[in-house]
């Protein structure tokens, strides 16, 4: 075959270019450790997602400065949202979909993966400085695709915790009974935390310092005298660091059975009857069916 000299030179230059490209990419993988999203994870059932990672999408600490984030994508949101991680941390994201193909992409970074139902994308990311990143779904997933967004907050070390707060108190008590407000505080970090549990009810504020070991759960119970609050609705708030949980307790003259609720409403302005000591304070159920454990969730635990 007759190939012109210039064409030969061009051919050689082209081959050098191609081999050079492959070499740089290989260096990026081997030398810099930029690994690809691959097949490391087993498949899952997208309509169930009942394993312990995705039944409760969250951030978990697995080592010093090492975290895992279990994220689900569904039409048209991400869970959890926002995702909060500390600065100078190494976070491994596990992302899967409950329905169609989505993506999980941190705007302005190279953190980017497809999210395919049945498959789990695994991606390890190093975060340095505190910064807020937007998360977009960049694969068309349905008519509201453009509204699918989330946030990743990289926060300063001292502002970061993995504390779960859940506070409970009865809905209704009779005047004179004690109101027990129980704050359940879980420390999902590996290290112990020292913090303060604070209850605000009416004009009263009570607090208690607690130390919770890593992975442990602490229960603090505050007892408040309903007589001091007086009859009526009283909002209470439990605060641990930035986490709050609040609901309302109603102090009534006399607890009545089931169908008398309407009367109780009408009579809420009657005088207090301090001597009555009927034990009605424990009608709050204690079951923990609340699966939607978004942090600083404000729903009253025992309302249902």
């Amino acid at each position: 075959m007759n190939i012109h000299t210039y064409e030969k030179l061009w051919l050689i230059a082209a081959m050098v270019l191609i081999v050079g490209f492959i070499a740089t990419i290989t260096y990026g993988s081997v030398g810099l450790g930029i690994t690809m999203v691959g097949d490391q994870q087993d498949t899952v059932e997208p309509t169930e997602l009942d394993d312990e990672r995705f039944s409760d999408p969250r951030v978990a600490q697995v080592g010093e400065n090492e975290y895992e984030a279990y994220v689900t994508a569904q039409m048209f949101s991400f869970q959890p949202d926002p995702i909060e991680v500390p600065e100078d941390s190494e976070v491994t994201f596990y992302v899967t979909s409950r329905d169609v193909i989505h993506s999980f992409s941190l705007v302005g970074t190279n953190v980017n993966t497809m999210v395919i139902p049945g498959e789990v994308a695994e991606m390890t990311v190093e975060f340095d400085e505190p910064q807020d990143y937007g998360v977009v779904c960049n694969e068309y997933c349905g008519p509201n695709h453009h509204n699918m967004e989330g946030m990743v907050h990289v926060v300063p070390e001292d502002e970061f915790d993995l504390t779960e707060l859940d506070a409970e108190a009865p809905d209704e008590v009779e005047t004179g009974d004690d109101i027990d407000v129980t704050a359940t505080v879980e420390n999902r970090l590996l290290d112990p935390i020292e913090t303060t549990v604070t209850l605000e009810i009416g004009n009263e504020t009570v607090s208690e310092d607690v130390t919770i070991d890593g992975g442990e759960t602490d229960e603090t119970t505050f007892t408040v005298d309903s007589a001091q609050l007086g009859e009526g609705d009283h909002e209470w708030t439990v605060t641990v660091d930035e986490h709050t949980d609040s609901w309302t307790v109603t102090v009534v003259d006399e607890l009545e059975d089931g169908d008398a609720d309407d009367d109780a409403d009408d009579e809420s302005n009657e005088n207090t009857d301090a001597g009555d000591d009927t034990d009605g304070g424990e009608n709050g159920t204690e079951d923990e069916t609340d699966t939607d454990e978004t942090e600083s969730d404000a729903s009253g635990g025992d309302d249902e």
Partner: protein
Amino acid sequence: MTNTYIESFPAEAKVVRAAFYSSFLALAIGGLFGIIQTLHRTGYYRFMDSADYYTVLTAHGVLLAITFTIFFLVGVFTWATTTSLDRPVEDIRFTWAWYGLMVLGTVLTAIPIFAGFTDSEMSASVLFTFYAPLQGHPLFYFGLVLFVVGTWLAGVDWFRSWWAWKQEHPDERIPLPTFMVLTTTLMWYIATLGVAAAILLFLLPWSLGLVESVNPLLTRTLFWFFGHPVVYFWLMPAYMMWYVLLPKISGGKLFSDPLARVVFVLFLILSVPTGIHHQYLDPGIAEGFKFIAMTNTMFLLLPSLLTAFTVVASMEHGARQRGGTGYLGWLKALPWRDPVFAGMALAGLMFAAAGFSGMINAGMNINYLVHNTFWVVGHFHLTVGTAVALTFMAVTYWFLPQVTGKALWSRSVALGQVVLWFVGMTFMSNAMHRGGLLGIPRRTAEPQYEGFEFEAAVGSVGELDAQIALGGALLTLSLVLFFANVVGTALNSRSDDLPANEYADTLSGPSDAPLVLDNLKLWTAIAIVLVIFAYSFPLLSIIERGGLFGPELTELPVSIGLGLEYLWVTTVSTVTAAGETAITIIAGVSS
């Protein structure tokens, strides 16, 4: 008496003309949808609900990426085989049959897409990639199948011509244009196996309710088995024009016939085993498979780089024949006044830029930064949207006289049109690339979010939007000029003073090319072996992991029962409603 194509092959000229007009119709509708999207995305003018954006986007993608390009391709390839073999098609009825099948397929596919604008239950707003579990109406998949079968039969037609020719010319080399047609067709046969499997085995039965579920990663992988080589299917007719027409228009000869054959053989072998590079970020495919796809992709740069050399060398040869001198001074001697030449040269220039952004996409780990961002949209508006589309429009100015026997309506308008396309695409594509680097996603109706904003490195996002809208407006204007020329030419009367139907001679002819280059069986076998290497293990692994029919899925939007009566009713109501919608849209645009 002239020596145009229509004089030599009057019957074939009709088919080629019909194919071109079909492709232009798709270009017109697709282009209209393009400007609607441009204005909607950037927020300059939104007259429809954002959910309808995706219906517009589906139509834009299918009509331009499939219908426009492939109808033009079958026209060019039919011209190329008949002209270079110097023989009519074997049976003109067969030729019309595959053309008719392609038209029917397009119409059947378009019905459910356009039904997406109506209240009917029928819809196929699943975009050009139709990733499951998003589900389109069965008619959408069925129409695509018919269309692809039409292209297969077109390939049979070209092969028949070649076989018949070979009987009469047993010792001759395959003429270069026919060689290009045959290698491209073989590549297409291998490539379309992927989409045929995806649709016939999985998506169509699933949309009909015959199977419960599909494996989304499997159908997606099969789509990209086809989805990358289809890119070369669009590109090959453009390459052919650069090889066989551009040197002629430049006033010279093709630099090297053997190297042209090498390039097309490389495309035959390397086009298919690369599709996984669209899935670099897919979970469930091992890194090793991605690396293999990347290596193949990088070697695919070789034929394009060789083409760049040959095209420029051929142009220089032409310029020197025309009296050009000097290191770069010869550039001045090229026929820039000729829209056919200027359009192809500008398209080639843009393709060089597209090559650079393509190398970024191909880089496995650099791809993280740009995958599914607006960057990618910028990239393929340079490739299919300019290298291919602008070349097609430019050569249309040469082909129209050939297939109609009428002189071009206006060469000046034509020159303005190709230049306008170049400038418009410069603005639009540059802003898309830059937007992608900021993380702005592709395929979204409103890339404006509540919780955060994109931070521009240079200028602002608002400026990028303005640049996109400006580019889109220029491109639309360019399209209007193009159609004015097509219509104006059709209305012209027959002319006796037209250029002859000829293509470029070669400096280094086929006798310099080793015989083995013409051994199509060998290259096809190598291509198949490479496909098996690149795909069998990934496919097996995907099936092993997720099952042939995948996990339980929720079908979206709905599964549609298929009574004949129901089909009839929806079809009729859809056609009428689609007409109304089209009028509304046109009214909306002009208001």
